[in-house]
C-alpha cells in the first residue's frame, strides 16, 4: 500500500494528512510537489490536503486545480485511482471538475473552526464502510469557504445516487442539504470540508476519523 499527499504552495495540512496515512497504513506517504507532471509509479491512494493553496487567492482551490499534477491525477482517477480531498483538497477537487458543485464563502462570511458533529449519510461507500449507517461522528472544521452549492439538478442527482456521504448536524456554513462530504459517481473520488485527518488521536480531536481512512485503505 503506497499513498501520496500532494503539496501545493501554501498547503498546510500536508503533514497532518501524512501523519494520518502513516498511522493507518504503517507507511509514510510520498509527498508529491505540485509542479510534477505525473504521480510516481505504484500509488494506490492520493490525498489532496487542506490549507490555503495559493493563499485561496481568486477562489479557494482554483489555481491549484489547474496545476500539472492535478491533470494527471484526474486522468488516473477516471481510470479508478482513489482520490480524497479534505477541506482545501475538496475545493481543489470541485474546481478541477472531479466532484460536482462548488464551495462558496460561508454564509455568515466568517472563518469557522470548531468540532462539528456529522451524520454518516451513506455508510455504503468505499470511504464510509467502517461506520454504522446513520451513526454520528465528530470531525473538526476549519474553513472560510465551505458553503456547498450545486444547481438543483446536480443536487437531486447526487442525492438520488446516494453520493452524499456526510451531513452536518448543525450546519456551520450554509451548505445546501447540510452537505459536508460527497463522492463521485464511481465512488473513488471523495471530498469533504471537515478534517478527518485531525480526528485520529485521542489527545487531539478524537479518533472518529480513523474509520474513514480504514474504509478506503481496506477497499484497495
Amino acid at each position: 500500500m503506497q499513498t501520496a499527499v500532494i503539496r501545493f504552495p501554501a498547503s498546510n495540512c500536508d503533514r497532518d494528512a501524512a501523519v494520518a496515512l502513516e498511522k493507518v497504513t504503517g507507511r509514510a506517504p510520498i509527498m508529491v510537489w505540485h509542479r510534477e507532471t505525473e504521480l510516481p509509479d505504484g500509488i494506490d491512494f492520493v490525498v489532496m490536503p487542506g490549507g490555503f493553496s495559493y493563499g485561496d487567492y481568486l477562489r479557494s482551490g482554483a489555481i491549484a486545480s489547474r496545476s500539472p499534477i492535478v491533470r494527471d491525477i484526474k486522468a488516473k482517477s477516471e481510470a479508478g485511482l482513489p482520490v480524497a480531498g479534505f477541506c482545501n483538497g475538496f475545493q481543489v477537487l470541485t474546481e478541477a471538475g472531479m466532484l460536482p458543485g462548488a464551495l462558496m464563502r460561508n454564509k455568515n462570511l466568517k472563518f469557522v473552526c470548531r468540532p462539528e458533529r456529522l451524520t454518516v449519510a451513506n455508510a455504503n461507500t468505499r470511504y464510509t464502510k467502517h461506520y454504522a449507517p446513520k451513526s454520528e461522528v465528530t470531525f473538526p472544521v476549519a474553513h472560510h469557504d465551505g458553503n456547498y452549492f450545486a444547481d438543483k439538478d446536480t443536487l437531486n442527482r447526487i442525492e438520488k445516487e446516494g453520493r452524499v456521504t456526510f451531513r452536518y448536524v448543525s450546519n456551520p456554513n450554509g451548505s445546501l442539504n447540510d452537505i459536508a462530504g460527497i463522492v463521485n459517481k464511481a465512488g473513488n473520488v471523495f471530498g469533504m470540508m471537515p478534517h478527518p485527518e485531525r480526528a485520529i488521536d485521542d489527545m487531539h480531536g478524537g479518533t472518529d476519523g480513523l474509520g474513514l481512512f480504514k474504509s478506503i485503505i481496506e477497499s484497495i
Partner: protein
Amino acid sequence: MAKKSEITPEIVAEHGLSESEYAIILDRLGREPNLTELGIFSVMWSEHCSYKSSRRHLAKFLTTGDRVIQGPGENAGVIDINDGDAIIFKMESHNHPSYIEPYQGAATGVGGIMRDVFTMGARPIALMNALRFGEPTHWKTKQLVSGVVAGIGGYGNCVGVPTVGGETNFHKGYNGNILVNAMCVGLAKADNIFLSAAKGVGNPIFYVGSKTGRDGIHGATMASAEFDDDSDEKRPTVQVGDPFTEKLLIEACLELMATDAIIAIQDMGAAGLTSSSIEMADKGGVGIQINLDKVPQREPNMTAYEMMLSESQERMLMVIQPGKEKLAYDIFEKWELDVALIGKTTDTGNLVLKHKRKKVCDIPIAPLADDAPNYDRPHVKTEAREVLEARDIHETQDYNDALLRIMTSPDIASKRWIWEQYDRHVMTDTVDSSQSGGDAAIVRVHGTKKAVAITTDCTPRYVYADPYEGGKQCVAETWRNLTCVGADPIAITDCLNFGNPERPEIMGQFVGAIEGMNEACHAFDYPVVSGNVSLYNETNGQAIPPTPAVGGVGLIPDLEKHMTLKGAKDGDTLILIGDTTGWLGSSIYLSEILSREDGAPPPVNLSTEKLNGDYVRKLIRGRRVNAVHDCSDGGLAVTACEMAFASGQGMHIVAPTNGKTHGWLFGEDQARYLLAVEENSVNPVIATAKAKGIEAQIVGSVGGDRIKADGAFDVSLEKLRAANEAWLPNLMNGDA
C-alpha cells in the same frame, strides 16, 4: 552626494529627530547628511528601533537562567526544552496600524511576529493574541473587533499555524487607541539556531521574499508618535499582508536552514532594509555595501530613501556562505520567491549604498547603534490608592443578578465569537486551546510526549491602580496559568504598551510596572527572553491604561500528566488553595456591580505564589486532582463557573466561615487555585498543604446542573452558560 544643504530644521523635525539628536548626527558625520542618510538615522533613532526611553529600564530585567539559550537582543528569545529541542518566542504590538486599518494592521502584526521566530530557525507552532478594545458601546469598537479578529485569523489560518489562545479586554481607556499584541512560539533544534550577526568580509547579501514597494514609509516613526484628531486625515499607507508569500518564505527559509549556507539572517520588520542591514552589520562588526538597483522593486522610480524606509512585508535579508549562492537561488526559486544578491559585507565599518551608479549613502555604522539616544526620562511614582475593606463595600441584595451580570460582563463573557475564527487545530498538535476556556494552551512537541504550555496575561486595571503590584501580578498570573496545566514555567516575553513617556506620570507607570514584573521574574526564576515596547499609545493627550502584556511559556515533560479545567467529576470536592481575604479593590465586582474603579489592587505575595503553585503542580504530577483553574478576574465564583462550563458539571460553593459573602465569592485575592478532587484524595491534599504551611480548604462540591453558593446564588448551569456565550455575538450583531 548633495553639496548644498537640503536639510532644513523642518525636515529634521518631520523625521522625529530633536535638535540635539540632529547635532549628534552632524558631529559624527562631520558633515550634513543627505535626505537618505537622515531618513536612516531617524528610523534607527526612533523609539521603535532605539528604545531610547525604555532601554535603561529594560536592562534591569532578569534575562538569564538555566534554560535560556538566547535572551533579549535577537529577533526572539530561545529556551531549552530538553532532548535537543528549543522553543523560540516573542510578542509584539501592532496597535497603531490596527486602529487605522484593522484587518491589515492585525494581519501584518501576525506576519511580523512569525518572521521574528522563523528567522531564528524555528518552525512556528502556535500563535496567541492579546487584544484590548474600547468600550463595547463606543461606535468604533465593533468594527475594530471584527476587522482585527478577521485579520489575525486571515493571516494565521492561511499560513497554517494554530492560534491557540489569548485574552480580550474592553475598556473606555482604549477607545481611541486599541492594543493588538500577537505572540508566536516556534520549535527549533537547539544546535541549529540562526542569529543576525553578519560575519566575514566579501560575503554575499541576499534579499528574499516580496518586492519592495512604497509601503508604510515612515511607519516606524508613526508607531512612536501620538495620535490626534487629524490622524484620520494624515493616514500613512498601511501595509497589506500576503500570508501566501509568508508561508512560502517559511518553507524556503527552513529548507535553506537545513543546509549550512546561512551565515546570518534577519527579517525586514519595521524600518525594513535600514534596520535589518544595520543590525546585521553592527552585531557582526562589519560594513555593508548594497546596490539598491538590485533590490526587487514593485514600483518604478523608487528612490533610495523610499527603498531604505519601505516597510513592505514578507522580506528577509541574509548573509550567505560564499559558494552557496546557487543552492540559495535554487531553493528560493523552487518556492517562487523573489531573490536577489544585493550586496556584500565589507571591512569599512560603513553602510554604503549605491543607486543608479551614485553613492547615495556612506555612514559609519557604529554611531548609528552606539550613539542612539538613551534617555533617562523623568518619572513620578503613581500615588498609592486606599485599601478598601470588604465590609465597607456595598453588598448586593441579589446575588443571582450579580453573578449573571459578572458572567456577561465584557472581560468575563466568552470570547468564542473570536476564537472560532482562528484555526486552533492545524498541525494536529493542539492538546488544549481557547476551546476549553483553559488557563494556558497546550501544544505538543510534534512526535513526542512532551508539550509546551503558553499563556498571555495582563490585568490593566491593576497596573493602572498600582503599576508595581500590577506588574508583579501580570507575571504571577502567567506563572499560575502555566502551573494550572501542569507545566514547569520557564520564561516570558512581554509587550509593554504605555502612553507618552515624555510625561513623568506615564514614565512612572512604566518604571513601576517593570520593577514589579522583574521582582516576580526573580521570585520564580522566570526570565524575560524577548519583548517589545509600544509607547505613545494615546489620543488627544489621553493615555491608555498601562498594559504590560506578558506571554509565558512552560514545559510539560510528560503529556500523560497534563491538566485542564475540563475534568471535574460528579462527586468531586472543591478545594481552594490560597488565602481568601475578600479583596474587592479594583475588582470586577466593583466595576460591574457598583460602577466603581477605585481601591488598591490585590497585593501579590510572591513567596506564597511560589509555594502554592509548586504544590499544585506536584498534585497534578501525582494525579491527585481532576481539574485545576486559577482564581483571578471575578474571584472564586467566576472560577467555579468556568470550571462548570468546561466540565459540564454543576458546582456548589459553601458559605464563608468568616468575612462577607461578596468578598468570599468575588474577591480577587492572588495565589489561589480551585481544585476538583476525588473523595479519597481530599484529606491527603489538605493535610499535606497544611504541613507545608499552605492555606487549603474545602469550599464546595461538584455535580448536578446548577451553580449555587450558600446564602448567595442558585442558577441553572445551562442558562448561565448560554448568557455567557451570547454576550459577544449579540454585541457583534446578533449573529452567532
